[in-house]
């Protein structure tokens, strides 16, 4: 428990000081992806379900939020709520279909469904097709906080992230989270103990998708843009990578993973095409040699040294 408290303190301290040290828009991007990765980790790390379609929730929440704010005159908070609801609703549809198959098929079903909604995003007129939704206004939060000011926007994003992260943290450490872990560890046993496993899986899926939607809607307000990049399967792969690299099944791992990957993409922009290759290499290395991820390996190191002391 103590380690967790230290983690929270470090997280809030870094969150408050980061925009004064680093370009704030970059930090906001990291926060959005960190929330997305944490939401994904709830499913992969704690329930043992690999979704290869999470880009659908991020991207579609972005489109709905962007369209609502730009064309329908939604306030930012309403736009974000609408985006979150979109993520959760899509999550309900994907989840209901995907949990009918286990293991490897689950991943393939989610990937295929995400490709389906990718094509829909490409064809529907309101998404702007290849151009995406551009120039989404940030508006005034609760009618009086001007979000076009970068620092206002930053602290709003930080608040959204902390709330989302707190929800995930609570879910993981609640009895609900314990049941999810039981399903991951031994599904037949969870069934024999009388748990309605499918219901728990679906609930975890909807929660994860809804929070991914929250991340996607927030991201749209930050960049004032909703585009096809966010619904493409590359994005689904990226979020798997962030979670895997940071440490799946650890509370803080996805945040570290998102920071590393987004930082790499930002500072490695001149690498051009090599970024894809590098991403692939990190994937291969993680799977072959580094399955616990950064935070998982660190935790193990601390635990071992603690025993020696």
């Amino acid at each position, binding site marked *: 428990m103590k380690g967790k408290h230290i983690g929270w303190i470090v997280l809030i301290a870094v969150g408050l000081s980061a925009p004064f040290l680093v370009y704030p828009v970059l930090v906001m991007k990291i926060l959005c992806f960190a929330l997305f990765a944490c939401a994904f980790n709830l499913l992969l790390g704690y329930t043992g379900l*690999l979704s*290869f379609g999470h880009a659908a929730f991020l991207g579609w929440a972005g489109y709905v939020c962007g369209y609502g704010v730009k064309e329908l005159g939604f306030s930012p908070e309403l736009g974000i709520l609408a985006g979150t609801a979109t993520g959760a609703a899509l999550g309900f549809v994907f989840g209901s279909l995907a949990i*009918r*198959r286990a293991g490897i098929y689950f991943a393939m079903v989610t990937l*295929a469904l995400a490709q389906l909604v990718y094509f829909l995003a490409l064809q529907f007129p309101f998404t702007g097709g290849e151009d995406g939704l551009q120039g989404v206004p940030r508006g005034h939060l609760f009618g009086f906080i001007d979000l076009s000011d970068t620092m206002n926007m930053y602290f709003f994003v930080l608040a959204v992230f902390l709330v989302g992260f707190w929800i995930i943290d609570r879910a993981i450490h609640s009895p609900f989270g314990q049941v999810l872990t039981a399903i991951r560890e031994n599904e037949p046993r969870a069934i024999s103990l009388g748990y309605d496993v499918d219901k728990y899986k679906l609930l975890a899926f909807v929660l994860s998708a809804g929070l991914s939607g929250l991340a996607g809607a927030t991201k749209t307000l930050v960049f004032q843009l909703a585009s096809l990049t966010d619904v493409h399967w590359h994005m689904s792969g990226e979020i798997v990578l962030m979670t895997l690299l940071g440490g799946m099944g650890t509370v803080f791992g996805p945040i570290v993973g998102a920071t590393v990957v987004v930082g790499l993409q930002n500072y490695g922009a001149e690498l051009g*095409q090599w970024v894809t*290759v590098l991403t*692939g290499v990190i994937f291969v290395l993680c799977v072959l040699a580094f399955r616990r991820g950064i935070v998982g390996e660190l935790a193990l190191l601390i635990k071992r040294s603690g025993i020696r002391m």
Partner: protein
Amino acid sequence: MDIFGIPIQALMGQLLIGLINGSFYAILSLGLAIIFGLLNIINFAHGALYMMGAFAAWIALTWLGINYWVALVVVPLVVGGFGMLIERTMLKHLYRLDHLYGLLLTFGLALIIEGLFRYRFGISGESYPVPELLSGGFNLGFMFLPKYRAWVIAVSLVVCFGSWYIIERTKLGSYLRAGTENPQLLQAFGINVPLMITLTYGFGVALAAFAGVLAAPVFQVNPVMGSNLIIVVFAVVVIGGMGSIMGSIITGLGLGLIEGLTRVFYPEASAVVIFVIMGIVLLLRPAGLFGRER
């Protein structure tokens, strides 16, 4: 001559393209099913290896002057060898772990291969000429059948049913099926199972590369040709289930045809029709048309 208001020429043309796509779905999903049966790994790199096959044929022709017919034999062997190298150096460390790691590793490999080709060749694509012997076509009266397309369909059917025959009807295939059921027992009978696994992966990859060579003159040869295809093939595999070789072949061909028909009657839906069918199948028959849960 019209059928439901559609000129028969157009209808037949789309059905032909559907059948060609279906042939590729069949060959690729067949390879995925064989690999999954023995290795318990879903080979995400399958699309990238298919793309490698197409590029290897293009490189052989343009840089080395090796013609189509030689490439059709040599390229699958070379790419299959590359696959065996992957299996020996990487995949073999994953067999005791969860299935998911195999998917993640091969996903990483797919990104590496695709990224390297994109770096070298860009994304605009290269075109591969139809071999002289197969240029031109037959006039069937109601439609014009290009020789090369007829060849693709015929040779795909031969390869698919040949694979089915080897696996279901020969001694070699019986080892493979036994290995799928119970590798420990097969090993105890004195069969070299690790070698068999390597060869099986190589065979699956060679099939993908073979499909790539076949596809080179039909489609643009470009670095992303595999990744878009593989997601559709995954949906095909979910619909058919991976339990049966014949099931993979029939599902692949059938879905190609349905996709072709959709392109005639409701073109906007042609990109998504296979995914929609997947959703319906999951609702009605969760284990897939020919599947058994494993």
